[in-house]
């Protein structure tokens, strides 16, 4: 009996679905893709009542497509902003200006202005919306801007049509040791949940067509805000300490010696020597491998690489010392992932000190870190002799 009715039933159900269905169907050309987001403090925010200003960068697809006939100088993006208390609400307000459905799944980069992140806990609160709503990817990149964040979303270089895309690829470009790894939203979420301190990429506007990624902003997990900025050089020191400096250069220019080494590999290892809470002693071993890429030194880098290595050890050691000092005394924040090391390898000790690691009692500040640097020159480039020798 049921077979006879089956086609009829199928027809009923099908027509029911077809007539009422397609609840969520949104045509592609009716979507507005949010590609970048900037979060600033609104101008009218007072000391105790912060008002945020959110800028959404929406993609205008016809502006991107260069294949269509007639080269248009149409802008490929549209920036919309509004102010308000919390981000989701502001985003909703923005949608009142947009004729298309806002769609955030392709969001590539979120930029917070320095002043937002400086305020304790504001950053953490405003991040919640990005991890909670299900259309946010955990791979979105997060960066801090010097000055207004929304200004960055107006910078269009000659080769890229979308400012957000430019920022995103800029953050990914890791050819210098003076920048931090791109910070993914997922990782950021983990750090915040664990209340760990970490560093964030720091961007500022260079001119109308370029942004520079230089140095890092230091975030203190317990305080819940940015405590300071590390400049490019010190960021390099920090990266060498954590073993992240796998590219970039170190150049030495004293009176008698002048050369540049390119970093190709970097490893570091940290060890806890004693367990006295108020005077923790750490032994840091750093290994750096480099190649000589430019030299005006009297020593032949091919035969006498030890001399170069020695110079580099001196240079790196002082750089590291400088960085540690800055971190311990000025920032008072653990930017070297020592916290992770302690949690993983000295769990009980960590449990007892974690509340006061880089705040309050600040065991981090009181600890003693001794450094041991080892440099290897792998090779000295394609040429054998330096120019000075040839001249003399």
């Amino acid at each position, binding site marked *: 009996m049921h077979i006879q009715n089956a086609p009829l039933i199928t027809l009923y159900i099908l027509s029911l679905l077809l007539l009422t269905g397609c609840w969520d169907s949104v045509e592609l050309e009716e979507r507005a893709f949010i590609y970048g987001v900037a979060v600033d403090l609104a101008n009218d925010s007072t000391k105790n009542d912060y008002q945020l200003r959110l800028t959404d960068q929406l993609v205008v697809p016809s502006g991107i497509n260069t294949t269509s006939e007639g080269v248009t100088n149409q802008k490929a993006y549209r920036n919309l902003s509004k102010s308000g208390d919390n981000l989701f609400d502001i985003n909703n307000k923005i949608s009142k200006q947009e004729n298309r459905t806002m769609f955030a799944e392709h969001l590539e980069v979120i930029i917070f202005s320095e002043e937002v992140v400086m305020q304790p806990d504001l950053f953490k609160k405003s991040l919640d919306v990005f991890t909670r709503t299900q259309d946010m*990817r955990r*791979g979105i990149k997060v960066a801090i801007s010097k000055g207004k964040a929304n200004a960055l979303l107006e910078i269009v270089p000659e080769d890229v049509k979308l400012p957000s895309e430019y920022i995103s690829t800029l953050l990914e470009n890791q050819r210098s040791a003076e920048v931090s790894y791109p910070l993914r939203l997922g990782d950021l*979420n*983990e750090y915040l*949940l*664990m209340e760990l301190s970490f560093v964030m990429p720091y961007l500022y506007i260079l001119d109308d067509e370029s942004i520079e990624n230089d140095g890092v902003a230091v975030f203190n997990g317990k305080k819940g805000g940015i405590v300071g900025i590390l400049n490019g050089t010190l960021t390099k020191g920090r990266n060498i300490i954590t073993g992240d400096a796998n590219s970039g250069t170190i150049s030495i220019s004293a009176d008698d010696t002048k050369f540049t080494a390119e970093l190709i590999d970097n490893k570091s290892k940290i060890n806890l020597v004693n367990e006295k809470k108020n005077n923790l002693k750490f032994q840091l071993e750093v290994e750096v491998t480099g190649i000589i890429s430019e030299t005006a030194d009297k020593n032949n880098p091919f035969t006498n690489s030890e001399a170069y290595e020695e110079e580099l050890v001196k240079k790196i050691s002082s750089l590291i010392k400088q960085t540690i000092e800055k971190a311990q005394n000025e920032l008072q924040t653990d930017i070297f992932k020592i916290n992770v090391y302690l949690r993983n390898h000295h769990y009980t000790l960590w449990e007892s000190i974690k509340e006061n690691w880089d705040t309050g009692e600040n065991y981090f500040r009181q600890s003693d870190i001794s450094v041991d640097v080892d440099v290897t020159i792998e090779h000295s480039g394609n040429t054998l002799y330096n120019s000075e020798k040839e001249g003399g």
Partner: protein
Amino acid sequence: MNKLELSYEAIHDRDILIAIPSMAIAIGILYMPRKLAQPTIGLDAVLSILLGGIIIILFTWLTVRLASKFPGQSFITYASKLASKPVAIGITLLFVLHGIFITSFEIRAISNISHLYLFDKTPIEIISFVFLLAVVYAVSGSRAAIFRLNALFLPFIIVAIIALALLSFRFTEINNALPVFQTNLDGYFVTTYRSMLTISGFGVLGYLLFYVPLIKSPTQTSKASIIGVLWVIASHLIVLIITILVFGNIATSNLIFPVIELARDIELPGEFFNRFDSLFFAIWIMAIFNTSAMSFDVAVLALQSLFKKVTKLKIVFILSPIIYFISSLPKNSYETGLSGRVIGYLGLGLSIGVTLLLFLLRMIRGVK
């Protein structure tokens, strides 16, 4: 029209091997890492899975060993011999209820997750309705066909798990595995219990009491079922380890569906498909479909043994509205999860209790 018997319709040991992971891997594994990460530190929950897994293997072995002594008999027949007829009827009815509840739960849960990740406005009622239609279609077919369906879908599920592990491998951080063995005893205890729940698939492994007697010559059934449970344990281990290695213990315990989040984290190489989560999720619908179809089928099978005169299709058509109604009861995803836990613990208790009871009775009375 078809009188040809080439014995393709018989159920073999291998079908049981395939059916076990098909039944047991469903919704539970999607949030299992959260449940296991919460009370533990680092990767310690691996121990709980191993421990819970061994216990489940033990009980599965007992179940299969008991049920395979009565080939060709229905559960109610041999249960009546061992216990008594009223007890057997009572147990059968409990399993019918469990089957109905699990089907409802799975349908509701998949609708909730679809609603969370795939849809915004589509009503949950419609999502679960079309899913139920597919399940009803599967159950109205032959029982052997459902086992064949398991065999068709299981490779997808295994491939999805392996792909999940391989593709998220580059996000893993070995630091997340540390520190080791810092969990207190209480944490191990709770997580062992929880892992028993998901490995047994909310007690669906108890359905073997009904399916194993369908095998005509059960020679390797115990071995096959143990291998089946081992697959389940292995997939749980893979999923747990990779989730914790990527997210770390603390973030894992803060994500509602850590496994789907893991899939969302993956960006496929090759710039053709961007994200893995929709794909993973789509494949997971098959896993949940298998579980729903099997638990629906066991309810039908149990009812068939009680009411021999009623046709299978009639039972299916009576049960489907009930299942749909039950699946629409929870108000939100929290209540769905809660009801799932309650059904799961009751089901696990039922399966283990009945197996032990009948096994002991058989030892005492020596029924053959």
